């Protein structure tokens, strides 16, 4: 069976095939939720944003002109919804236990005891500091950093998603890294390989 591309699924969804769109959801919901999770720092809100992203995309799928990849379109919707949710939030979570981004870190830190416990603790603290540093970034820097450095999108893809030139994306990534490096150094960490 030939695997359908995203464009094929979108074309089918435009024709009323909800199952095709469901397949599109299964392809991208994990990444969309991951993106929303890093932006919102809330699992429940990330799940809501993920659902809302696909629902809004399906309702407006006729507006998709096909000039870009469908996932960039979905990412843009997710970022907009996440930023809107973030701005409407009245409080934010600062504790390590409440931060869903630290789930994987805690899970890995509580791994086999053969690993260096001191290193694990340092790693955990470093990631928590990194989370705080990311939260201190502006929305544009944070969204760009998450898309490029965490989600692994290229500068071109991030430019299409965020609607900014690639040069701007590159500058944002550099600026975000610089700020995070300085932030970590201020908290007693020495990021290797990052030349000030």
């Amino acid at each position, binding site marked *: 069976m030939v695997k359908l591309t995203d464009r094929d699924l979108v074309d089918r969804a435009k024709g009323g095939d909800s199952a095709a769109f469901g397949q599109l959801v299964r392809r991208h919901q994990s990444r969309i939720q991951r993106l929303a999770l890093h932006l919102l720092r809330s699992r429940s809100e990330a799940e809501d944003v993920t659902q809302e992203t696909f629902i*809004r995309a399906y309702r407006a799928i006729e*507006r998709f002109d096909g000039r870009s990849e469908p996932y960039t379109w979905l990412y843009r919707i997710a970022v907009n919804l996440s930023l809107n*949710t973030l*701005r409407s939030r009245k409080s934010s979570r600062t504790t390590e236990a409440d931060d869903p981004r630290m789930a994987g870190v805690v899970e890995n830190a509580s791994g086999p005891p053969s690993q260096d416990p001191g290193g694990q603790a340092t790693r955990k603290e470093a990631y928590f500091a*990194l989370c705080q540093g990311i939260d*201190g970034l*502006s929305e544009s820097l944070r969204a760009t950093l998450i898309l490029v*450095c965490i989600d692994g999108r290229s500068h071109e893809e991030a430019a299409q998603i965020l609607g900014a*030139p690639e040069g701007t994306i590159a500058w944002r990534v550099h600026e975000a890294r610089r700020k995070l490096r*300085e932030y970590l150094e201020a908290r007693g960490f020495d990021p290797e390989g990052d030349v000030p």
Partner: protein
Amino acid sequence: MSGKLRKIPSVSEMLAHWPQEGSLADGQERSALDWDEAAETIQARIEAGTKADETGEISTYLTDEEIFSTPAGQTDKDGHNTGSLTEPGRVRQSAPVPVKSVAPEESKMSLTHEQRERDRKSLQDLARLAQMTPAPSSVRMPVAAPVASPSRPSADDAMMPSSRKEEDSGLVNFAAFSPQPPASAPNSAPISQPPSSMRGMDQVMGAAMPMPVSSHPSAHSAHPSQPPGRISSSMAATAGLFDDEPLSGRPPSVAPPSMAPQFVATLPSGGVPHITADSVRPPVSIAVPQSVHPSVHPQPTKKSGGAVVYMLGTVVALAAVAAGGFFVVRPMVLKSRAAATVAKVETKVEAPTQVGPETRWQDQIAAAKPADPAATPAATDTAADQTGGKVDELDVKPQAKVAAAPAYAKKPSSPAKDNKNAAAFVLNDEPKVAPPPPAPPPPAPVAAGGAPSGGDLDKAIKTAAGPSDSTNVTPADDKKPAFAAGTVPQRPSQGAVTGAIGAVLPNARACLSADDAVSRATITFTSTGGVQSVSVHGGAAGKPAEQCIKGALSSAKVPPFAESTYTANITVRH
């Protein structure tokens, strides 16, 4: 510090290998089934057609335009490095605002672009606030006055209220602080003022302006921080925030007394009693309210009129100094030149040969000539010194010639007096002439050069200039310089040679036809400036044109020079 830092992977590596959130917070790994379940939920909602805002899951509903807009497009903040995140544990708070394509704010720890703009604007606001600062109690600000010119701005206008902010150009309206006629005075009469378009000129000329504050003794006490006589032209300057008056343009507080009469004459008889005779008043034709106290006048613009007077006075003084220097220096220069001329001529000419109007200058020279011929070189040296050491060829003569010149039996006079007489001769052309000799002596030979003797001025000049005819130059003279080194240029200047050749080159070119080849000519000048020889090479050599070219180029002449000969090569073509 670096020893205390804990080594961690790089930021890029940490971000790239962020632990997967595929596991839930409670450690349960989200399986593919869970993702399928989530997808089915989404699909069910799509089929049900419910909206998130209806269910309350999304607090703020976004329109399609908002949801498809660029979430983090290009902003003016991109490309500008901002501050670092130096505050640990700080979590950014965002205000619940609708989604816009422009990122709302930068890191709080950094100085954002908006903050910079706000700072720039604050400087303008500071100037306005300074203007709005109430004046000291000793100064009463003018109140709204029924002025005949409604276009005259008030102090409030200068403060630029918020209602006029859209017109704010960032410039402080100093014109708005021009004096206002007080209207609260019961007996005040309307003041006819020029239109606002003429106000600038009025301020410069000091016309139709109320009396300066400085004219009243209490004016100086209006603001103690200002020195007496220093009047600020604006309220902001009065407040000491800045000085709106250039240093060079600061006029004295009181105009010269010479200007007082005309101003006082134009004032009405019942003028303001505090006006003094030496206060600067423009020739106004206004009815000054008698009940107006000078202290109610706002800060004046008297500085403009005073500045003009001050500058005019300075210009006149400088012109007078320059004229004085000119009249002092000019006679000295002429005197020195005349002395040099006299010394030269008297060493060249032995005696006047005629008595007549055309020889009166020789008599005058003789009258001004020193008795001792030895003083002549000194006079020449003095002339050379006073002319900056630049001596033309007419002033140059060998010392031997001076020594060989016969002594004149004239009345003694000091060299200084001679110079003065010579200067008078040059300037007035009516010198005190000595009695002419009783009989013209026979023409005497010139000491050198064989120049014809006589009383003609041209001949005397030619004599002084030396022999210009090559026939007077012996072959022995060609071997050695005819002039002492240092008195004439070592060799003719390039400009002199070019000019001399250029004067005769057209004649030489006329010797060639269009078909003749290019010829080169070598011209040898003697130290006297004449042409010693001309040799022609090239196409015209051996042809009749050669002689023609030689004849044409032989008429060239350059100024005398020290070296025996000077050779110049030129190209002659049709």
